[in-house]
C-alpha cells in the first residue's frame, strides 16, 4: 500500500522520468514518407522489403501478434499474392487444439492465423532477454513519439504531421552510436542517442548488408542495403501493421471532405436566401458609442 501511494505521489509530481537521463536527447529528423499527407499511400515494394527485414531481423525476439498472414495480401498493404501468403503461413507451426483426444497439436499455419509470438509467454520472453520482454511491434509507430513542444504541436495540426512515431523509430535504429566520453553504460544496457535516457536493453539489431533485398532488372538491389534503409523500410511496414486501413481512411476522408464542403456551400446560400425574407441577416450589436452613462 505504501509503495503504491509513493508511486502515485511520484507520478503526480512527474518524478517518474528516468533519473539517470544524461544529456539532451536529440530531436529525430523528419523524413519524407510515402504515406504522409492527405493523399498518402504505402509503397508496396517498400512494405515488402520492410516485412523481409522484420522476418529476418526482428521476428526472433519481437511478436507481431495483431497481424494475420491474410492481412499481407489485403488491399492497402504490402499486397503479396494470396499464393505467397499461403506459402508463407505454411512455413510457421501453429499450436491448435485440443483435438478429439484432448491433446494440443501443431499444424502448419493458414492465412487466417496470426503471427505466432517468438516466446510462449511474457515471462519466457523476459527471461530470454535479460529481464525485459521485447515489446510487440504491431502498433509501434503509433505507440512511440517524441516531444514536439511549442509552437510545433500547433503547426503539426495544419501540416497533418502524424509520422512522429515513424521518425522516432528510424532515428532509434540509426541511433546506436558510441556513448559520449564519461557516459557509463550499465551491464546489459546499450547506448542509443535517441532512446529516452540513452540506455536501451536491445543491442544494435542490424548492420549494413545483413538483409538481402530483391534485385532489379540490372541485378542491383532495389534499395540500398544499409541500416538507414532497413530502418525506413521496416518502419513503413510497421506503420502499415499499426494502421492497416490508412489508405482507405485518407481516400474516404477526401470524399467526405468534398461532400461536406459542397453541402456547406449549398446550405450557406440557402440560408442567405431564407434570411433575405426578413431583410437579410444581422448579427451581433452595433459598436456602442464610447461615452458613459451620466
Amino acid at each position, binding site marked *: *500500500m505504501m509503495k*503504491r*501511494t509513493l508511486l*502515485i*505521489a*511520484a*507520478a*503526480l*509530481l*512527474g518524478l*517518474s*522520468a*528516468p533519473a539517470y537521463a544524461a544529456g539532451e536527447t536529440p530531436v529525430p529528423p523528419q523524413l519524407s514518407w510515402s504515406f504522409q499527407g492527405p493523399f498518402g499511400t504505402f509503397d508496396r515494394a517498400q512494405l515488402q522489403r520492410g516485412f523481409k527485414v522484420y522476418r529476418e531481423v526482428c521476428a526472433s525476439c519481437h511478436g507481431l501478434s*495483431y497481424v494475420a498472414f491474410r*492481412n499481407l495480401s489485403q488491399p492497402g498493404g504490402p499486397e503479396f499474392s494470396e499464393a505467397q501468403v499461403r506459402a508463407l503461413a505454411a512455413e510457421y507451426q501453429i499450436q491448435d487444439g485440443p483435438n478429439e483426444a484432448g491433446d494440443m497439436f501443431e499444424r502448419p499455419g493458414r492465412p487466417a492465423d496470426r503471427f505466432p509470438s517468438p516466446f510462449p509467454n511474457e515471462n519466457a520472453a523476459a527471461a530470454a532477454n535479460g529481464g525485459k520482454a521485447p515489446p510487440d511491434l*504491431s*502498433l509501434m509507430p*503509433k*505507440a*512511440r*513519439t517524441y516531444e514536439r513542444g*511549442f509552437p510545433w504541436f500547433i503547426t*503539426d*495540426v495544419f501540416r*497533418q504531421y*502524424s509520422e512522429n*512515431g515513424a521518425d522516432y523509430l528510424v532515428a532509434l535504429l540509426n541511433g546506436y552510436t558510441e556513448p559520449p566520453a564519461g557516459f557509463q553504460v550499465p551491464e546489459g544496457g546499450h547506448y542509443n542517442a535517441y532512446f*529516452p535516457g540513452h540506455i536501451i536493453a536491445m543491442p544494435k539489431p542490424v548492420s549494413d548488408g545483413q538483409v538481402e533485398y530483391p534485385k532489379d532488372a540490372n541485378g542491383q538491389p532495389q534499395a540500398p542495403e544499409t541500416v538507414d534503409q532497413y530502418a525506413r523500410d521496416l518502419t513503413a511496414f510497421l506503420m502499415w501493421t*499499426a494502421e492497416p*486501413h490508412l489508405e*482507405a*481512411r*485518407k481516400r*474516404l*476522408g*477526401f470524399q*467526405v*471532405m468534398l461532400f*461536406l464542403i459542397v*453541402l*456547406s456551400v449549398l*446550405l450557406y446560400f*440557402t*440560408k442567405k436566401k*431564407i*434570411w433575405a*425574407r*426578413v*431583410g*437579410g441577416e*444581422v*448579427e*451581433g*450589436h*452595433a459598436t*456602442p*458609442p*464610447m461615452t*458613459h*452613462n451620466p
Partner: protein
Amino acid sequence: MSQYSTTYVPKSSFGKWFESRLPIASLVHSSFIAFPVPRNLTYFWTFGAILVFMLVAQIVTGVFLAMYYTPNAALAFQSVEHIMRDVNYGWLIRYLHANGASMFFVAVYIHIFRNFYYGSYKAPREVLYILGVIIFILMMATAFMGYVLPWGQMSFWGATVITNLFSALPVVGETIVSFLWGGYSVGNPTLNRFFSLHYLLPFMIFGVVILHVWALHVPGQNNPTGIPIKSGKDAVPFTPYATIKDIFAVVVFMIFFAYWVFYIPNYLGHADNYIPANPAVTPAHIVPEWYFLPFYAILRAIPDKLGGVIAMFSAILVWFLMPWLDTSKVRSTAYRPLYKQFFWVFVAVCILLGWLGAKPAEGWYVIVSQIATAYYFIHFLVILPVLGFVERPLPLPNSILESVMGVQKGGAGMPAGANAEPQSKG
C-alpha cells in the same frame, strides 16, 4: 410573414384527435418552429445545436462500438484492435468516437465562454445555466471513463491517478477508492464498472439536456446585446431562420471534425495508450486528455494532495455561483469596457493553465501554475463581484433592432401578434 402561424392548429382529423390526447405536436411547434429567436444571434449561438449533434453522434458511434468491445482487463485492448483491424469500418467508428469526445469539448468550451462573455448566466437564466454546468460535469465523468476503456497505459495510469484523488478525503477516502476500484488497485472490476457507467451517463446527459432546452424556452435566448426581445421586430421565428443557420453551422463543424478523424486521428490521443496497460510500468508522464489539462494544472499547483483536490473541484463548483458572484446588471460584455479586458485575461489564464497541465510539475512550471490558479479564483471571487460596483457600463441600445439596424430601418420580424415575451409561455 403570414405563412408562419404562432400557434399550432391541427388540420387533419387525426391531428385533432392526437392533439387532444398528447399535445406533442404543439409542443414541438411552439418550441422549435414558432419560438421567437433574437434576430441578431451570431454563430456563437449555433453551438447548442452543434452540441446536440455531438451528443447524438457519440451515442450512436458508442452503441456500435459496444457491440464489439469487450470490457475485460485481459481482452479490452485486443478487442479495440479487433475493431480497428477486422470490423468493417470499425476504424472509422472508433476514430469518430475517440475524436468526437474532443470535438464535444471544443464545442462545449466555446458554448461556455460565449455564455461568460454575453452574461447568459444572469437572471432570468440561472437555472438554465446551472443545468449546463451539470451537463459539463457529467461530460467530464463520461469522457474520463471512456478514456479508460481501451485499457492502454494512459487509460490505466490515468484511472489510477484520478481515482486515487479520492483517497485524499479524510476518514472515508480509502473506502471510497476501494469502492471505485472494486478491489485494492485499478483492475478488471474497475474496468467493468467504468464501462457500465460510461454507457449510462450519456443518457443521463441526454435527460439533463432536455431540461436545459426546456429551461432555455422559458426566458428565451440571450443575444449579443444582452437586452431582451421587446417587440416582434426584434425576433424571427426559430424555423426556418435559426434552423437553417444551425444546420449550416453543424455541417461546417462536421468539416472540422472530419479533418481530425481522417487526417490526424491520433493527434489528440497519447502514444502511450497504444501500449497495453501494465501495472508494473509507470509512463514517464501521466497526462490527461487535453480538455482536462487546466483542471489538472490546478490540482498539481497546490502542494498538498487534499488541497489540490479541493482546488480542482472548486474550480468547477465556483461556476455554480457565477450568477450571484457577478454583480453587474449589464449582461453583454460589449457594454462592459472593464470586464471585457478581464474576460480576455481570464481566457488567456485558462489557456495557460491548459499548457501547464501538459508540462511536468517541476521548477518554474509549478510557480506559474500557482499564480495562474490564484488568478483563476480571484477572477470569480474578487473581480466579478467588485467590477459590478466600480465599472461604468456603456449606454445600452433601446432594442435589439435599434442596435443592429438603426431605428429607422425596419425590416420584417416576427409576425404581428407574435408573443414578444416568451416568459408567458408554458
